[in-house]
């Protein structure tokens, strides 16, 4: 029998336990053990960002992280951001601005967009379109351009600044 490690962590707000091989990547664990298929394994090299999830308040490429390192941490995936019935404001903004074509990169893109806006919340410096584009440098969309994506994120920045 090959080695499996038991780990426990908080997944989208709920405590979970799971047994994983020590070199299984976090994206594979999320997809195969928890059926959280929003985040995609696309390039597997950290180039595309389709597997972006948040671990303890920092986004990472879950294809480059071993699942065992989730032990004791807080993990959030796109499925924990909003639900199909009640979209989170960033998800809603992507829908409203048509910032979607095939949708494959969207879960990672939205996780990163949420992170960029949250990171800058409360700063005196107002988030610009350039800041948004830089914050999304690690997320690739191969269908279209990024203008509508930046539109969507900029709309969230405005909306959240006014509330």
């Amino acid at each position, binding site marked *: 029998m*090959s*080695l499996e*490690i038991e780990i426990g962590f908080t997944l989208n707000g709920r405590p979970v336990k799971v047994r994983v*091989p*020590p*070199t299984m*990547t976090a994206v594979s664990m999320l997809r195969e053990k928890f059926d959280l298929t929003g985040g995609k394994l696309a390039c*597997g*090299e*950290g*180039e595309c*960002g389709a597997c*972006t999830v948040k671990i303890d308040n*920092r*986004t*990472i*490429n879950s*294809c*480059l*992280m*071993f699942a*065992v*390192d989730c*032990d004791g941490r807080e993990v959030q995936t796109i499925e924990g951001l909003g639900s199909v019935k009640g979209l989170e404001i960033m998800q809603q903004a992507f829908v409203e601005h048509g910032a979607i074509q095939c949708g494959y990169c969207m879960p990672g893109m939205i996780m*990163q967009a949420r*992170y*960029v806006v949250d990171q800058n919340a409360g700063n005196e410096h107002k988030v610009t379109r350039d800041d948004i584009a*830089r*914050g999304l*440098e*690690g*997320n690739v969309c191969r269908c279209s351009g990024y203008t509508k994506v930046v539109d969507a994120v900029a709309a969230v920045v405005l909306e959240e600044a006014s509330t």
Partner: protein
Amino acid sequence: MIENYSVPSSVAEAAQLLQQGDATIVAGGTDLTPQTEAGARTFASHLVNIQRIEEMRGISTSDGRFRIGGLTTVTEILESKILAEEIPVLVEAADHFASPQIRNAATLAGNLCNASPAGDMCIPLLLLDAEVELASWVDGSVAIRSVPLAEFFTGPGKTVLQAGELLVAVEFRQPAKGFTASFQKSGPRPALEISTVSMGLAAVLQDGLLTGVRIAIGAVAPTPLRATATESTLEGRALDENMISSAVQSVQQEVSPIDDVRASAWYRKHLTGVYIRRALSHVAGN
């Protein structure tokens, strides 16, 4: 095949585990994962995850020395207020590094121990005469040795790290008054780019003369390179067009780049000349 997995919570515990031999250290995993997934590297029988060693995190200063824990991430360097104020060249290099998600995971120790000739954090640290602190388990306790970073790299992917050794921290002295430094990096894209050439240059300019010259260049030799010959030709000289021309000539002789997928050796050499010219102009303008 991995038979054992450990998560030490202190340097002492890690050193003891590593002393048993045949171990692979994992930190952020941003180099290790793609290398093992691609089959370019195989795991030892024992995987040691060092991410829970709290004493290896963070940036501190005391007695005019800076200490950056090996597990400090590139994001933490980028966001550090004290570094932005005191050592902006480190923050500049962090700002040119990969993407936000990679920076959030990538550790300083991982960048140094991976020993890529193109490793971006090596360059500013070479300018600072940084030393790396290596820990191992000897005769029942932790033994520490310090190695100048300039002597740490021995070849592509190779360092003086012995089996069982852990890179705990990086240390350097607060630079002298008047120290200015710059970092430049090229690649066809602004983000997620492994350097085609990177260059750091530091010096103190006083009464028109350069002193304390340090030049470090990435991706032009088997290791990140300290261009010591060029440094000594510039030391104590007046910063003028004459000197800049001889710097270009000297540095182009000192590098030994290769042709690869990212660029030709010729182009790398050319870029090295462009960069030193820019870096010296930057110092002159400060």
